């Protein structure tokens, strides 16, 4: 906590020094901008539990160092979550009473025309955005997913990386990125905490009493931990396109070992799980353009795991000593060493009356792996602006998910997220929306059907 306070103090000093710099060097000043966001969500069903509480101050620092270089940083300072107060001692801890945290989302130096006029490089914590689709990008795998809020599609954290763009001409370029240390995805929190956890099927007669796990992180050396990617971008026949290759690790862990331990005589068990992040090759392609006035895009990523992933279920503590190993140590293939493809197709249209329609079809969500486990997602959004664009209403927004086409009525999900936003001033926007979930079967949104919620956001930009 003391450390966070010191960091905050440094930031305040930095802001003060920026103002000093403003006066001294108008032409070369640090530009400070940002946003204040209040995001409050609570469940629609009584007693209307709070689902999300976030107050975020985003600070962006942007400074041209020379005509050919710049520094950029984005920092989040947040009051986040609800206080977890359990004893009177917690009342003495402001960090528990009023939980807050700080995140450096990006902090990098970018050099334009480095060594060659055609080469730009960027060093530091950065977000390297890949893909042409709208928010849902199967090729966007360099940075770790930030799945904290499962409904904030496409959010990633920055990575400590070095990247370059080499521009052959105005239409063709090559991008490369190297991330020396692997950073896993951060998982959903709050009511979404279990949304991405797979359903655990236990043998008949067993009851899960406790679950513990151990993550096996890759060793922190370049061979084990690094990620590298290349992307060739171009423009031809009226379409932007790109081809990419990435060698890295899947950011979400996969279970490779489960040890079952009995805790009573009526079938209660504890499970200890080992989780790994597997190596994978990802070949990507995307394109975007316009056909007959309609914006269209397509994006696909072929994932090829480096090795077959097996999960060992260890039942040795359940069976008596001497039971054949075939019965006590059961291997199951959880991911074959074969290519599976996630893809997305989308289109949008701007009507002359100011309304906007966006449609996307996606095969394979961020947490789905293996050809047989990829579900189909249809997303749509229609919005219209009123009163000189002050009021924006999106009466149609949401998606339809099918997890088994052979039995749709038992394997589907519906998400309905209508939204109203109002620009109270040029820089202040109030957003009201609801999220209604319904569904059956095994897909993440069907699992949220008890979490219908009302959402309120206020954004103030400065």
């Amino acid at each position: 906590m003391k450390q966070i306070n010191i960091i905050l103090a440094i930031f305040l000093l930095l802001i003060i020094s920026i103002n000093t710099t403003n006066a001294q060097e108008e032409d070369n000043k640090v530009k400070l901008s940002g946003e204040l966001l209040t995001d409050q969500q609570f469940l629609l069903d009584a007693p209307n539990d709070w689902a999300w509480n976030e107050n975020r101050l985003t600070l962006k620092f942007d400074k041209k160092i020379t005509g050919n270089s710049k520094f950029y940083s984005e920092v989040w300072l947040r009051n986040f979550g609800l206080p977890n107060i359990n004893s009177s001692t917690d009342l003495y801890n402001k960090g528990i009473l009023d939980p807050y945290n700080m995140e450096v989302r990006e902090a990098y130096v970018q050099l334009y025309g480095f060594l060659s006029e055609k080469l730009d490089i960027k060093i530091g914590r950065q977000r390297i955005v890949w893909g042409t689709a709208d928010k849902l990008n199967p090729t966007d795998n360099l940075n770790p997913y930030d799945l904290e809020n499962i409904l904030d599609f496409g959010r990633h954290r920055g990575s400590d990386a070095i990247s370059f763009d080499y521009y052959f001409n105005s239409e063709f370029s090559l991008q490369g990125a190297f991330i020396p240390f692997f950073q896993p995805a951060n998982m959903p929190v709050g009511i979404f905490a279990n949304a991405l956890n797979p359903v655990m099927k236990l043998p008949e007669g067993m009851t899960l009493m406790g679950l513990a796990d151990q993550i096996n992180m890759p060793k922190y050396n370049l061979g084990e931990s690094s990620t590298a990617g290349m992307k060739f971008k171009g423009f031809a026949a009226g379409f932007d396109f790109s081809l990419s290759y990435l060698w890295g690790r899947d950011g979400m862990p996969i279970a490779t070992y489960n040890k079952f331990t009995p805790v009573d005589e009526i079938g209660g068990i504890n499970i200890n799980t080992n989780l790994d992040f597997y190596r994978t090759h990802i070949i990507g392609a995307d394109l975007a353009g316009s056909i007959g006035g309609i914006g269209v895009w397509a994006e696909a990523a072929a994932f090829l795991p480096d090795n077959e992933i097996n999960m060992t279920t260890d039942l040795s503590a359940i069976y008596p000593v001497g039971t054949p190993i075939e019965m006590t140590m059961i291997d199951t293939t959880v991911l074959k060493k074969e290519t599976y493809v996630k893809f997305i197709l989308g289109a949008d249209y701007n009507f002359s009356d100011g309304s906007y329609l966006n449609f996307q079809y996606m095969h394979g969500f961020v947490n789905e792996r293996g050809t047989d486990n990829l579900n189909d997602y249809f997303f749509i959004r229609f919005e219209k602006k009123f009163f000189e664009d002050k009021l924006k209403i999106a009466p149609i927004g949401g998606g339809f998910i099918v997890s088994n086409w052979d039995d749709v009525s038992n394997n589907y999900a519906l998400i309905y997220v209508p939204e109203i936003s109002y620009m109270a001033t040029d820089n202040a926007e109030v957003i009201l929306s609801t999220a209604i979930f319904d569904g059956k079967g095994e897909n993440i949104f069907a699992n949220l059907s008890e979490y219908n919620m009302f959402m309120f956001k206020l954004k103030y930009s400065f």
Partner: protein
Amino acid sequence: MKNLKLSAVVVALILFAGFNANAQDGNTILKKLDEVMYSPKDMTGNTEIILIDKAGKKKTRKATTIQKGTDKRLFRFTAPSSQAGIATLSLPNDVMYLYMPAFGKERRISSSVKSSKFAGTDFAYEDMEAKLFVKKYTANLLKKEGNLLVVELKPVSKKSSYLKIIAKLDKTNYYPTYMEFYDKGNKKIKTATYKFEKIGKYWNAKEITMVDLKKNHKTIMKMSGIKYDTGLTDNDFTVRKLKQ
């Protein structure tokens, strides 16, 4: 009867010749208008956009603009804060990119956006398009009105949201002073008033006032800090620059 037919032919010939002459005059005028509007090789400047609603309430937006020739333009908002950094890059063949700093990537804009309003103003993307008038319109000289030429412009593209534009041009220098925009139902929907000034050897529209007659909403676009022929190259109009 024969005389009547002959008279009809003569009248028709005169009308046709008159029509042709007007069309020819119109196209000549358009070429001269293009010479005025697009003769600089390139342009850089600042734009202040003032939006005034029917109650007289004002909102201001600021942007920087660079332009090369008739079909390359980079427009970047600098204020208000909620829009600062948002930029559009217009390239030949209706290619347009939008850069949203929040998403960190450029995005192609579908050509359907051209009929919609530009950044909440009373200008349509179509109005902002830096494309030669002779390529966008066919013209017909309607009349001369004092020191003004009144010209009817009809869009070549069927995708245009306008049926016609009636433009009044300065007879001496051929810059526009006033335009009326008509929708497909031949209803006047917008007017634009221009104030020109000469900077060096070029005429510059230092202020354009666009009025949406239906909504009684007004947009004033003021240009300042204009510099011509500073040597911008095609490399200044790339996605690379858009993202910087």
